[in-house]
C-alpha cells in the first residue's frame, strides 16, 4: 500500500503537479491505537516547487547539487510549515497521523488552515507567534526565556507550538503546555536540547537547522514518534534509549560516522541518515519496522545487516562509494526490499550493474527511481544466466586445464622413467614440466569440443565435454576442434572406441605425445579406418630414432603434413630425415614438413638421394625376397607386376605406372617397410627356429650325399678290378665248351 502511494507521490512531484504529502505515524504501541494524521495538501506553487526540489534532490541530486542545504535556509522568505517541509525532507512519505482519541485533530484542523496561519505568522517575521499570542519572558533563571501563550492561542492550537526562526540559542522554558503534541524549533541556533522534559505528551519534535552537537534531554519524551534533527552538528547517535515509540528519526546533514544505539527502536519506520560521514552500514539489528532507510551522500563502501530488516522497502544509497556488488550482497537476501538507488556510486558505472542488481534482487520494483520492467528483468536474467554459464564454463575449463596439465606432467614423468632419463637429468625434467605446462595453453586455444562417449553419440554439452576428456593418471585423450591429441601409450586404446562419424570426420590432425613410435605403428591401420580425414600427423616424445620408422607411415591413406618435434625424436637431428620422408612418402605428395613448405627442389633432392635405393630395392631384389617382404595385401598387385614383367619392356613400364597409381604407392618403395622391434625380434626368433631345422635337414642331406658320394667313389675305384675278375670268371667257365653245354642243358631240364 505504502509503496504504491509513495510512487504516485513522487511521480506527481516529478511532473510538477500538486502534491499530496502525508506523514503517517502509526503508533501501534499506544493503547488506544491512536493514529495521528497530518495531511498536508500543498497547492501553492512555491511549495510544490519546494517539494519538487526535494524529490529532485533525492532522485537527481547529481544534477542538482546540494539542494537541501540551500532550500530550507532562512533567506527563503516563503518557507512554509517547516515541520512539513522537514517531513518531506524525511522521505517524501505521506504523513498521515490518525489519532482516534483526538477528534479535533481531524483533517480540517490540521490541513491548510493551520499551515496558512502559521505561514502568516512566519511572514510577519516569525514573532507573529510571539508578538500576539506567545510571550517570551525571562524566567527566574537568568539564561532561559520563559514562554507563555495567550489562552486563545492555547485554545486554538492547544496541541502545537511553533517557534520557528526565533533566533533562539537555547530552548525556552515552556510552562503550562503539558498537553503539547507538536513542537517546532526549526531554524534557530539552539545548541542543546533542554527544558522540554515536562512535555511528556509530545509526539512531534522538530529541531531542524540548529546547532545541536549531542542528542540529549529527550529521555522523558516517551511518546515521541517523530524526531527531526536534520542539519545539526551531531556526531553520534545516542541517548535515544527511552524513545521506544519513535517512528521517524531524521538525522540527515550531521556528522555521524557510524550507526549505533538504534537497535531498540523496533517501531522506527523511517530513518534518515543522508549527508553524514558514514563509511559503512551495519548494526541494523532490531529495527524490525524500518521501511525506509536513507543513506544518500555518505561515503559508504559496504552494506551489511540489511537482510535483518524484515520490513525494509526503500533503501537509498545514492552518492556513496560502493564499487562492487559483493560489498552490498546482503541486499539480495532481503525479501522485502522493493526500491533501491545506487546512482552516483562507482558500481552504477559498470556495464554489468543493472542486470547484476536485477538478477540478484528479483523482488525489486524500482531501481534508481525507475520502474523495473518485465523486459528488463528478463534481459537481466538472460544476461546473468549467460554470465553464470560463462563463469561455470571458464571454471570448468580451468579445472580441466589444470587436470590436463597434471595428467600430462604425470605422463611425462612416466615417460621419462620409461626412457631412463630421470636420474641423470633433473634440470631437464624441470624444463619438461614447464614445457608441458605450456602445452595445454597452446592446445586449449579453442574450446574443448564435444567428445563422444563410449556410445559414440556426439553432444556438445558441457558435461559431456568434461566426461569426454577422459583423464586418467597414465594417459590423456583430447579432441580439440580438428585435433585429436593422445598423451601416453594408454591413449592409443581410445582408437578402439566407437567414434561418432562427425567427430571422426572433423579430426584432421592427430598428435602423439609420450608414446613409443613402435606402439603407434601398431595402431596406424586403426587410425586409417577411424579417422579417414586425418591429414596432419604430429609426433612429440615418440622415440623416433631411425629413418626406417618413417616407412610405417606409408600405409596410411593420406598425409599432407608431418610435424616431428625434435623433443624426444632424435631422428630430427639427422641431415637427411626430411628427404627420406619425402622420398618414402612421396605418394602422399606432402605439403608441409615441420611447418615448412615442401618445394619442388626438395622433392628432386629426395629422389636424387634415395632413388637408387628404391631402384635397387625393386629391380635387384630377388623375387622370392619380394614376396616375403610384401605383405599379403600387396601380393595381388605384386603378382600382377610379376606377370607383366615377362612382357615387352616398354609395355611393362606403362602398365607398371598404372599399377603404381592403382596401389597409390611406388612399388619400388614398398620394399622399404618398417617392422617394429618387437615384431622383428619375433620374426628373428622364428627364423632361428627354421634355420635350426634347415641346418639339421641339410646336415642329413649332405651327410647322405657325401656318403653316397664316398660309396660311389669307392665303387669307382673297385670297378675296373671287379670287371676284370668278372670277365675272367666268365671266360674260365665257358672255356670247356662241352661240359658247359652239358651244364646248361642240365639246368634247363632241371627247370622242367
Amino acid at each position, binding site marked *: 500500500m505504502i509503496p504504491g502511494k509513495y510512487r504516485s507521490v513522487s511521480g506527481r512531484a516529478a511532473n510538477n503537479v500538486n502534491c499530496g504529502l502525508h506523514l503517517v505515524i502509526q503508533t501501534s504501541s499506544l493503547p488506544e491505537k491512536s493514529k495521528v494524521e497530518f495531511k498536508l495538501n500543498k497547492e501553492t506553487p512555491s511549495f510544490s516547487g519546494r517539494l519538487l526540489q526535494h524529490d529532485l534532490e533525492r532522485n537527481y541530486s547529481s544534477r542538482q547539487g546540494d539542494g537541501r542545504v540551500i532550500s530550507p535556509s532562512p533567506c527563503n522568505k516563503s518557507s512554509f510549515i517547516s515541520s512539513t517541509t522537514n517531513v518531506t525532507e524525511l522521505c517524501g512519505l505521506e504523513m498521515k497521523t490518525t489519532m482516534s482519541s483526538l477528534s479535533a485533530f481531524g483533517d480540517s484542523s490540521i490541513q491548510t488552515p493551520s499551515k496558512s496561519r502559521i505561514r502568516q505568522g512566519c511572514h510577519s517575521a516569525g514573532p507573529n507567534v510571539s508578538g500576539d499570542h506567545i510571550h517570551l519572558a525571562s524566567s527566574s533563571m537568568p539564561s532561559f526565556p520563559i514562554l507563555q501563550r495567550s489562552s486563545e492561542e492555547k485554545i486554538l492550537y492547544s496541541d502545537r507550538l511553533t517557534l520557528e526562526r526565533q533566533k533562539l540559542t537555547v530552548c525556552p522554558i515552556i510552562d503550562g503546555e503539558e498537553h503539547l503534541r507538536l513542537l517546532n524549533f526549526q531554524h534557530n541556533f539552539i545548541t542543546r536540547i533542554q527544558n522540554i522534559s515536562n512535555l511528556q505528551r509530545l509526539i512531534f519534535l522538530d529541531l531542524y537547522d540548529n546547532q545541536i552537537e549531542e542528542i540529549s534531554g529527550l529521555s522523558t519524551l516517551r511518546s515521541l514518534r517523530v524526531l527531526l534533527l536534520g542539519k545539526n552538528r551531531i556526531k553520534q547517535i545516542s541517548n535515544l534509549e527511552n524513545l521506544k515509540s519513535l517512528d521517524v528519526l531524521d538525522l540527515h546533514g550531521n556528522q555521524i560516522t557510524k550507526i549505533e544505539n538504534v537497535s531498540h527502536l523496533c517501531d522506527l519506520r523511517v530513518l534518515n541518515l543522508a549527508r553524514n560521514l558514514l563509511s559503512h552500514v551495519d548494526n541494523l539489528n532490531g529495527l524490525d519496522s524500518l521501511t525506509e532507510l536513507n543513506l544518500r551522500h555518505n561515503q559508504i563502501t559496504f552494506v551489511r545487516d540489511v537482510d535483518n530488516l524484515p520490513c525494509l522497502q526503500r533503501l537509498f544509497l545514492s552518492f556513496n562509494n560502493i564499487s562492487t556488488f559483493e560489498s552490498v550482497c546482503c541486499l539480495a537476501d532481503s525479501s522485502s526490499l522493493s526500491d533501491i538507488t545506487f546512482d552516483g556510486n562507482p558500481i552504477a558505472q559498470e556495464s554489468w550493474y543493472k542486470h547484476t542488481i536485477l538478477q540478484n534482487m528479483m523482488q525489486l520494483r524500482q531501481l534508481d527511481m525507475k520502474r523495473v520492467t518485465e523486459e528488463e528483468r528478463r534481459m537481466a536474467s538472460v544476461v546473468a544466466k549467460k554470465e553464470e554459464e560463462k563463469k561455470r564454463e571458464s571454471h570448468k575449463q580451468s579445472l580441466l586445464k589444470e587436470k590436463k596439465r597434471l595428467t600430462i606432467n604425470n605422463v611425462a614423468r612416466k615417460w621419462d622413467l620409461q626412457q631412463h632419463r630421470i636420474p641423470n637429468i633433473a634440470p631437464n625434467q624441470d624444463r619438461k614440466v614447464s614445457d608441458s605446462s605450456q602445452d595445454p595453453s597452446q592446445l586449449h586455444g579453442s574450446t574443448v569440443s564435444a567428445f563422444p562417449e563410449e556410445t559414440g553419440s556426439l553432444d556438445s554439452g558441457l558435461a559431456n565435454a568434461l566426461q569426454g576428456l577422459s583423464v586418467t593418471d597414465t594417459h590423456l585423450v583430447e579432441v580439440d576442434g580438428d585435433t585429436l591429441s593422445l598423451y601416453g601409450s594408454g591413449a592409443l586404446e581410445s582408437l578402439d572406441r566407437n567414434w561418432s562419424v562427425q567427430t571422426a570426420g572433423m579430426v584432421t590432425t592427430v598428435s602423439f605425445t609420450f608414446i613409443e613410435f613402435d606402439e603407434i605403428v601398431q595402431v596406424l591401420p586403426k587410425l586409417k579406418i577411424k579417422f579417414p580425414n586425418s591429414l596432419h600427423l604430429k609426433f612429440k616424445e615418440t622415440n623416433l630414432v631411425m629413418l626406417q620408422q618413417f616407412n610405417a607411415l606409408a600405409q596410411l591413406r593420406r598425409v599432407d603434413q608431418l610435424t616431428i618435434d625434435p623433443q624426444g625424436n632424435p631422428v630430427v637431428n639427422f641431415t637427411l630425415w626430411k628427404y627420406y620422408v619425402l622420398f618414402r612418402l612421396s605418394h602422399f605428395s606432402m605439403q608441409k614438413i615441420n611447418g615448412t613448405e615442401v618445394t619442388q627442389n626438395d622433392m628432386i633432392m629426395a*629422389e636424387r*638421394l634415395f*632413388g637408387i635405393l628404391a631402384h*635397387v630395392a625393386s629391380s635387384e631384389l630377388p623375387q622370392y*625376397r619380394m*614376396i616375403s617382404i610384401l605383405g599379403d595385401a600387396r601380393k595381388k598387385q605384386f603378382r600382377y607386376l610379376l606377370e607383366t614383367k615377362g612382357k615387352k619392356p616398354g609395355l611393362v613400364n606403362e602398365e607398371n605406372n598404372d599399377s603404381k597409381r592403382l596401389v597409390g604407392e611406388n612399388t619400388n618403395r614398398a620394399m622399404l617397410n618398417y617392422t617394429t622391434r618387437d615384431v622383428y625380434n619375433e620374426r628373428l626368433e622364428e*627364423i632361428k627356429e627354421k634355420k635350426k631345422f634347415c*641346418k639339421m635337414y641339410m646336415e642329413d642331406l649332405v651327410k647322405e650325399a657325401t656318403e653316397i658320394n664316398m660309396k660311389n667313389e669307392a665303387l669307382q675305384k673297385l670297378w675296373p678290378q671287379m670287371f676284370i675278375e668278372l670277365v675272367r670268371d666268365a671266360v674260365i667257365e665257358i672255356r670247356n665248351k662241352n661240359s658247359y653245354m652239358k651244364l646248361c642243358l642240365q639246368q634247363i631240364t632241371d627247370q622242367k
Partner: protein
Amino acid sequence: MLSPERLALPDYEYLAQRHVLTYMEDAVCQLLENKEDISQYGVARFFTEYFNSVCQGTHILFREFSFIQATPHNRASFLRAFWKCFRTVGKNGDLLTMREYHCLLQLLCPDFPLELTQKAARIVLMDDAMDCLMSFSDFLFAFQIQFYYSEFLESVAAIYQDLLAGKNPNTVIVPTSSSGQHRQRPPLGEASVLEGVEASLFSQCLENLCDRHKYSCPPPALVKEVLSNVQRLTFYGFLVALSKHHGINQALGALPDKGDLMHDPAMDEELERL
C-alpha cells in the same frame, strides 16, 4: 672342376668351409618361409634364382644381420649394396653423424648392430669426438675394414693390448715362434714412453695371426707393407692405414677405388630415368 683343396678335406668340411652349406641352408629356409608362393612358380626356379642372386650379391638386401655377416661374400655384397644405394649421399657432399650412417645401414639391414657402426666411426673419429660429422668415403672405407675383417680386428686388438702391456703375445698365441729374434729388439721400455707399439714386432705377430686365422683377413703381404712404412704405430693408426690402403680395398673387391667412389654410371642412368 675339382679343385685340389677338395681332396684335402672331407666333403662335409669342404662344403662348410666354402659356405656352400650356409647358402643351401638359407635357400631351404627361404623356401620354407614362402612355400605357398614359391611352389606356384616352381621350386627349381626358386633355387636357380636364389643362387643367381647369391652370385650377384643381391641376396643380402633387407636380410637379417646374422645372415649378412655369415660369409665373406655376404659381407662384401652388403658393402657393395651400401655403397651403391647411398653413394648419392656422398656425392651430395653431406657430412653425417655416426648415428645417421647407422640409420642408413639399417635401411638395408633392419637389425644392424650399433656397435659395429660405432667401431667403424671410431676409426675415423677421435674417441672424444664421436658425434662429429664424417664424409661418406671416410666412413665407408673405415666401415669396410671394420665390417669385413671384424673378427680379425678383434684378434689384432688383443695382440695390440698385450704388446702395449709389455707381454709378448707370441708366447701366448704362437709358442713355437722365433722368440730369439725378438730378444734382439730394443727393450719394450722404450715403447712405453712412445705412443703405440713397435711396427715390426707388431707385423711379426700379425703375420702369425694371418697364418692361423680361420676368418678372413687382409692379405699378409699388404699388412706387412702397411707396417713397413712406419716405425711405431697405434692400433687406430693401423686401422686407419688399413682403411686407406687401396690395395686392401682391391683385394676385398667390394668397393671401387677411392677416386671412382662417386662413379656408378649404370645407376646414374637409372636415376636419370626416375
